[in-house]
């Protein structure tokens, strides 16, 4: 019995396998375990597949990457080292697909896109 226990311990030590988190296995930064717990506890379905949580975490990470990359570029263009809500607003409203996704969303303390309606401009005589 003791020998069995010893061999098991020696196997894990010999193989040198450190326990990896699911996020590390999938190569993601977002927490797969936490997303799995949210899906289970909030009663979306009776059962949740393991691959579903990995897929969902990957999609959320991709969307975060997309927004943060463009917002970072906007911040740099405005000579700032920190992303503020205005940069996120400019990011979302200038991108067609992100604007469609966040069409009904109001971002706090972000202002509006500069735009003058054509009818409010001076009449330009066309020769």
């Amino acid at each position, binding site marked *: 019995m003791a020998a069995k226990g010893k061999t098991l311990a020696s196997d894990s030590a010999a193989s040198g396998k450190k326990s990896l988190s699911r996020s590390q296995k999938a190569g*993601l930064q977002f927490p797969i375990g936490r997303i799995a717990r949210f899906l289970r506890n909030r009663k979306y*379905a*009776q059962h949740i597949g393991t*691959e579903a949580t990995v*897929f969902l975490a990957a999609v959320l990470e*991709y969307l975060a990457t997309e927004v943060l990359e463009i917002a970072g570029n906007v911040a740099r263009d405005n000579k700032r080292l920190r*992303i503020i809500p205005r940069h996120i607003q400019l990011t979302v409203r200038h991108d067609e697909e992100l604007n469609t996704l966040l069409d009904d969303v109001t971002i706090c303390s972000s202002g509006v896109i500069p735009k003058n309606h054509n009818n409010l401009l001076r009449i330009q005589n066309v020769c």
Partner: protein
Amino acid sequence: MAPKAAAGKKPAEKKPVEEKKAEGVPAEKKPKAGKKLPKDASGADKKKKKAKKSIETYKIYIFKVLKQVHPDIGISSKSMGIMNSFINDIFEKLAQEASRLARINKKPTITSREIQTAVRLVLPGELAKHAVSEGTKAVTKFTSS
């Protein structure tokens, strides 16, 4: 010898006097309420201190992703709150759609297939295609490891 002994005696004599004085000082001040209360309050706090309830957010993960994409750019706390709300919103949209798909098809399980279909329904155009490819890549890497 005698003066040395006397010198040796003097500080020794002084010490008990000082101790008596030190004892006398708090003894005199004890009846005053000012010093007592903070001691008692701190003691009560130590006994009755409630553990702070932890709030789970995606903030540390958003920060990690930002450092991957732009290592030298920071993010304000309001912007971090906006990004956290954005992730929660998209999570709910996708989960609700996947739940509806599973229910319509009379399946009790949400699998990666339901999530993929939900992504195609919720996200517009190219965003959906890229998101599906990212998800598939992550699932392949996960199952192979």
